[in-house]
């Protein structure tokens, strides 16, 4: 907000005087109206933002939506659906693959946090939550791969199904890594890019491995 740089209001200005100061004339209008907007508008706005980000992941190019208006709803939904699809055992028993569910959860979130810390320690300019947002949203191709794998496994579990699953998972893994690298690598100095890309590669590799080696009980 460059226009606000010369607006400074100190403590000893009489309170009545502030009424006529056009404060925030450069702020976008929504900063005033969103304090009082109807709840439905808030919900729709956030839902549309989440949808837009999913689209940006599928067609990765440098876009401000993922980076600037970050949110963690997409990663939450993707993480939960991936963990649900990856759980082993039957869904109704007491010992219903609970540990595996929590494991997938922890791997994804803890892995994303570690990658973010790594990139910040290497001097990246991206903020903590932005990085989590990008990494989480780029799990979308792998979630699609998991869905495809489960469908293929419904049909059969032989060599052909394994080859199909392998191809799908490798393709989606490449897509995820390229998508997240496109967003994250730019924030690093040029000689550090490989140091940042490698953990991301490893992160999606572990998830892809879990997907590929999944066998339903």
């Amino acid at each position: 907000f460059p226009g606000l740089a010369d607006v400074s209001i100190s403590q000893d200005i009489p309170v009545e005087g502030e009424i006529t100061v056009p404060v925030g004339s450069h702020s976008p209008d929504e900063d005033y109206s969103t304090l009082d907007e109807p709840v439905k508008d808030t919900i729709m706005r956030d839902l549309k933002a989440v949808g837009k980000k999913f689209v940006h992941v599928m067609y990765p190019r440098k876009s401000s939506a993922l980076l600037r208006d970050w949110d963690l709803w997409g990663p939450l939904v993707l993480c939960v659906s991936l963990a649900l699809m990856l759980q082993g055992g039957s869904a109704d028993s007491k010992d219903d693959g609970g540990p595996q569910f929590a494991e997938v959860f922890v791997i994804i979130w803890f892995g994303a946090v570690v990658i973010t810390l790594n990139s910040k320690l290497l001097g990246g300019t991206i903020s903590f939550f932005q990085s989590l947002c990008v990494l989480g949203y780029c799990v979308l191709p792998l979630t699609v791969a998991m869905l495809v794998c489960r469908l293929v496994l419904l049909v059969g579990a032989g060599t052909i199904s394994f080859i199909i699953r392998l191809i799908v998972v490798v393709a989606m893994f490449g897509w995820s890594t390229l998508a997240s690298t496109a967003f994250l690598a730019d924030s690093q100095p040029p000689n550090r890019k490989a140091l940042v890309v490698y953990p991301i590669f490893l992160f999606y590799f572990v998830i892809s491995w879990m997907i590929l080696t999944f066998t339903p009980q």
Partner: protein
Amino acid sequence: PCALTGSPPQALVDDTEDVSLDFGSEEELALRKARIRHPLATFFHLFFRVSAIVTYLFCDWFSNSFVACFVTILLLLSFDFWSVKNVTGRLLVGLRWWNQIDEDGKSHWVFEAKRVPTIAASTEAEARIFWLGLIICPVIWTLFLFSTLFSLKLKWLALVIAGISLQSANLYGYIHCKLGGQKTISRVTSRLFGTAHVPQRQSRRISEDGTEDHGKTVPR
């Protein structure tokens, strides 16, 4: 139109408005008299938090499946976080906080408070419910953390930690809004330009308002 002669009934004089001879419409008077002006927001503020806690405590009764409980509680916690942060905070106490990233990629945390109360502003009862709900629930989740650790039911640990982080994030954000921060703050009279029909009241309110207040941060 009511005939108000002499001193107004006590119910009209509450902590947000000091109106004496005001012939407002019926709805405005009813709104001003009500102890809770946003019943739906108040309900939802407490509903998600309390349901998450109740589900956690009684998950064995609801379902045998750990996964179903985990997902349910997680979704309840997420909805609670979103609704407290985006809706009930601004409706019940007129505070809001968010994270903003400007063009050169720097991230700022912004804490905003609604300066000028209006007819539909919050009452003391609502504010009390808001703050009690905000403070008590993270404390309860911290107790759950210790009980999980000591009883070694570690599969719930991830969920409890998620619960604590989400709820304390809201608590921290709103306390920061309420107390102002170290950031330089410029006052924002947010409703001023929107409510043209009560100019005198607004100006009287501001000159009487001696409380410390704060508005949008100005990113440097």
